[in-house]
């Protein structure tokens, strides 16, 4: 049972790690674009903002378990098959990046708008404002949002497990549910709880260490 759970845990960590990484690689530019093009933004553009916003809402309105299944053809195209850890990562990224884009947008909107105005007055361009002011000011909140995304992906990865995606969710369903091995089920739950606690603790400590507010 130990090897089984250990391998499943490693798979889950891989899904959460790469899932979060790629969701941020897609979500950060998208969230920045939302921030820039909103009505009060540095480069207001109704068409861009509302198109992106609608696309994000559309993906977010699909329950994740259904999204994974609907994405099977796409995952097969990208990683060659529709089951296993790599296939799950594709689905996790697609499910999470719209969520990340919204988190980024809201983190950036938390930056003092008068500070942004002040730096504009000093002659800062929108690019400089994003790189030298907004990202710097929003950093603690961005780090908190990485934790939030990882924890959301812990849940999502378990759902991916339900349809053959690998990881702890997969083990819990195959052994705990189908084979009535309650001990495996309970161990999976304990590991998941510990995982979430550790993620939150690490990121809280990190935020406190770098936040000067």
């Amino acid at each position, binding site marked *: 049972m130990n090897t089984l759970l250990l391998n499943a845990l490693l798979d889950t960590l891989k899904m959460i790690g790469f899932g979060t990484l790629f969701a941020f690689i897609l979500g950060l530019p998208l969230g920045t674009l939302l921030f820039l093009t909103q009505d009060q933004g540095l480069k207001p553009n109704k068409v861009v903002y509302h198109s992106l916003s609608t696309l994000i809402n559309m993906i977010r309105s699909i329950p994740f378990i259904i999204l994974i299944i609907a994405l099977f053809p796409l995952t097969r195209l990208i990683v060659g098959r529709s089951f296993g850890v790599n296939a799950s990562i594709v689905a996790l990224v697609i499910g999470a990046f719209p969520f990340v884009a919204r988190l980024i947008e809201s983190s950036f909107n938390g930056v003092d708008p008068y500070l942004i*105005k*002040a730096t504009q007055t*000093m*002659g800062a361009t929108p690019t*400089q404002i994003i790189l*030298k002011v907004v990202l710097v000011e929003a950093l603690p909140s961005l780090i908190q949002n990485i934790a939030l995304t990882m924890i959301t992906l812990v849940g999502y990865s378990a759902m991916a497990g339900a349809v053959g995606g690998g990881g702890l969710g997969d083990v819990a369903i195959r052994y705990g549910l189908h084979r009535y091995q309650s001990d495996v089920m309970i161990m999976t739950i304990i590991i998941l709880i510990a995982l979430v606690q550790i993620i939150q603790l690490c990121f809280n400590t990190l935020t406190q260490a770098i936040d*000067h507010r």
Partner: protein
Amino acid sequence: MFKLEKLSKSFTQDKSTLVAVSSVSATIQKGEKVGIIGLSGAGKSTLLKLLSMQERPDSGSLVIDDVDLLTLKGKDLLRMRKRLGFVFQGVHLISQKNVKDNIAFPFTLDKSTSKEIDSKVDHVLNLVGLSDKALAYPNTLSGGQKQRVGIARALITQPEVLLCDEPTSALDPLTTASILQCLDNVHAQTNVTLLVITHDMHVIKRLCDRVIVMHEGAFVEEGKVSEVFNSPQHPQTRLILSASEGR
């Protein structure tokens, strides 16, 4: 020399036009200390937006050393923008950067060697009397200290004109006095032109040589502070004075 030439700005909403700034002109000599006073709605905020180039005027020009800022673009504009330093009412520092990096911020907007920046930051910190706070973060500073950092940040580009927007209205009387003293010291040591926009006549009395009274978008009276405040000519000036003195 800093010149405002027939600056005008109006806003149109629902077919009605509001003239916020109406053909205002002023010539301010290098090293002068000038205050613009007006009550709420006089057009001070719009004037400030025009001076900080957040809004373009409908007509008029903004001239520093014979260069009209409003005709400039890109790098030339950025270079000339540095001739104007801004002190904001709410200071607005970057909370995640220390005092030194906040002050150096205007420099990071174009290329400059870090050695130069260090000595310049030391210099302006000295001017505002905060030499020991270079590595402190804004959340550890008092309101008055933050405003001093704001003044230092405005001075870092060695501006021709220091434009102060209600620099003390967020501060208590004691801190206000120390900030005004600080601005006075800065002026004595650098001979920077001070242009203070405020609703508070005490700030102008304490700091300025010359005052311009703004009302309904126009400059309605101007002159030496002592003369204008002792024998006000325009009804609006009298209103401001009597309101401030509680009569």
